[in-house]
């Protein structure tokens, strides 16, 4: 038999979900990365991902891809447009873990909308290592170290000033 029956404790998802065991294991690993550890939470989250997409028979890579998509959608709604863009999943996961989101159980993800206090905490916890760059060039300054010698050298060799080995 290639599928198992998993009992979930989460009222917002079906109580039984069929999943390919390797896919389920991959999903468990994925959600453990968010801090979920209990079997009840993990099975509820597997159901949330696979049921939502009607993909109970999905193979591990597809199942994880679905989970990523599901989480990205969730983070986009929770964190808002301010944090949209590449790396949303990584930054969202960091905010989720730093706010101990997993302690609130799988229901935090599966319910229609996240509680306001969590949304506020998660938005404040999104790591922003730097703001958007405004590129500028810091031109290397010309310093003629010995102007009199330089004058002589240029007169003798007819070359342009050379003040830096990085040029």
């Amino acid at each position, binding site marked *: 038999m290639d599928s198992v029956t998993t009992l979930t404790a989460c009222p917002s998802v079906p109580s039984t979900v069929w999943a390919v065991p390797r896919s389920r294991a991959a999903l468990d690993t994925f959600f453990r990365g968010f801090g979920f550890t209990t079997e009840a939470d993990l099975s509820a989250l597997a159901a949330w991902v696979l049921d939502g997409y009607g993909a109970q028979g999905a193979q591990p890579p597809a199942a994880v891809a679905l989970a990523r998509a599901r989480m990205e959608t969730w983070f986009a709604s929770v964190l808002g447009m301010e944090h949209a863009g590449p790396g949303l999943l*990584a930054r969202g996961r960091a905010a989720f873990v730093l706010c101990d989101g997993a302690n609130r159980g799988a229901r935090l993800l599966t319910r229609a909308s996240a509680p306001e206090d969590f949304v506020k905490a998660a938005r404040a916890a999104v790591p922003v290592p730097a703001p958007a760059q405004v590129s500028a060039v*810091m*031109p290397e300054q010309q310093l*003629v170290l010995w102007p009199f010698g330089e004058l002589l050298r240029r007169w003798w060799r007819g070359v342009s000033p050379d003040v830096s*080995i990085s040029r």
Partner: protein
Amino acid sequence: MEAHSFSPESAAFRRVGVLGLAAVTTLVGTLEMHRLLSAHGTSVPEVVLVGLFALCFGWIALSFWTAIAGFLQLALGPRLPGLRYPTPDEEGQPLASRTSVVMPIHNEDPASVFANVQATYESVAATGHLDAFDFYVLSDSTRAEAWVAEELAWSELCRRVGGQGRIFYRRRTDNTGKKAGNLGDFCERWGRRYDFTVVLDADSLMDGRTLVKMARLMELNPRAGILQAPPLNVGRTTLFARLQQFAGRVYGPVVAAGAAAWQLGESNYWGHNAIIRTEAFINHCGLPVLPGKQPFGGHILSHDFVEAALMRRAGYTVWLVPELGGSYEQPPPNLLAYAQRDRRWCQGNLQHLSLVMAGGLHPFSRGHFLMGVMSYVASPLWLLFLVSGLVAALHDRFFLDAHALESPVLAFDAPGALRLFAVSMGMLFAPKVLGLMLALFKRGEAARMGGRVKLVLSVLVESVLASLLAPVMMLFQSHFVFGTLLGYRVNWSSQQREDADLPWSEAARRHAVHMAVGVGMLAVAALVSPALVAWLLPVAVGLLLAVPLTVLTARSSLGMWAARRGLFLLPEETEPPEVVERAQAITEEHAVEPVPDAIERVLGDAKMHALHLALLESQPGLAEHTSPAALESARRKLLGGGAEPLSAQEKVAALLDVGTLSEAREQRLTRALS
């Protein structure tokens, strides 16, 4: 833009006063020295001696007259002419500019770094001007453990103060150009977002009111390129550090006010605790890489002097503003750490010799380069002066007719020599006496430094200990100068900032040569005359006692013992400024968890793993400089299931690769499940 003067009308008077009097004093002193030495005619060693004396005495004379100028400036009114200061109305207005506060770090203790950032941040918030400031910790750390600990500390700091989006942590894997390169990288990426940039050091701490004042002064003085707030040493407990802190607090203001009083808008920049006009800095202060090899070629090591010179060359002024206050840093905890720092600074300052004649610089910028060089070269000059003196004495003793020496006409003018010695000592100690006088007569100051008696006693003890330590520093610095000139390479590792006791064995190893020099000096002097031994005793005693002095002054217990008895107390200790107190409290309350193994921490801790990966993905391009071989080897060790430890390079390579970290963590979780 051509360099031109922005100096006030009194500038010429101030400069002629200090530089002219220093020149006259040097001339008079040198003539007197020549008179004393030429009693028996003038030998070659004596000519050298007079030349060396002129240089050393000139250096003392300049410090002396600068201290006099500082004393007068502080006594008559501390505000410098030439800057426009805000009116009370303007002080109440919101800032119209944006300022970044940047702290470049390199393998530092994250607990103290982030405590200082938090205290400064909170202090700015308390002024109500937080919206005008952003904070950046610019990490150049090369150790994987330091890097992960910084990420953790930054995240914790942001959580505590709600600082995400205002306190940033930028990691650089390629630390080209060291601190100057780090700052340059910041300017090229984010500099244009800000009107001004406050540059801090890893141990800097600044009062929010000072930062607001600095930003406002920059707004009001559009031609000001850099304002330097002289930092005050605070926060250390070892006896050596407490001596530094005390000296800096009592004598430092006189010296800083004196330099500011005559240098005015052509002052210098010390590399930290200063505000710079960002656009001018970007456009005019990109450092060249000097032709030739180290010590004079390559990347500019002491960037601050050069940046100040370039800023001034571009037509912007550079001000030292002692009245700003609220600017703090920490001194090295012991003599060896102090010497280690000096070794770096020495090479950096000597490199400036090649810039003294560079085209287009303001004469004062050339003067700053020379003064920076002289602050280290003075030591070997004094050493050569001593050696020349000994050689001259030996010459007279063994090569002159003994009967001639007994002639009253040719007799050495001992009272004259004592007089010149007394004048030299008086000029050396003048900044201490002037600083003490200001502290004694400033209302409430002495009371906050343990009372008048304790204050005077502290100055006396500090002077004795500083005099004993000076010969050792003279030999250290002489070694650094000669070593640098002979191609000694400086290792720019981070400084020791902890108050740890020094082992006797290390002190003995470091000072063995110094003690031998002391013994040798006394032995040679004894060959000449007992009187010469007495003359050299102040130098020799310091060298002979180098080991116990270094070990004992490195002890926190002795520093605290002195503090309990009211010695070397600072007003900032008896009535600590809020920002200093807060920084200490944060360091104690929020100890940063040690990271013994960076990889283990990132793979084993869900929070750290998520945070680290988020930071990696938010800063694309970080892994550009990863060595493929190191990453391959790290992957083999991490994913191969063996227990082989990773090298430092492999750790960094793995920590830069999202794929490797994700795979390794998944593997670990799967293994845990099964």
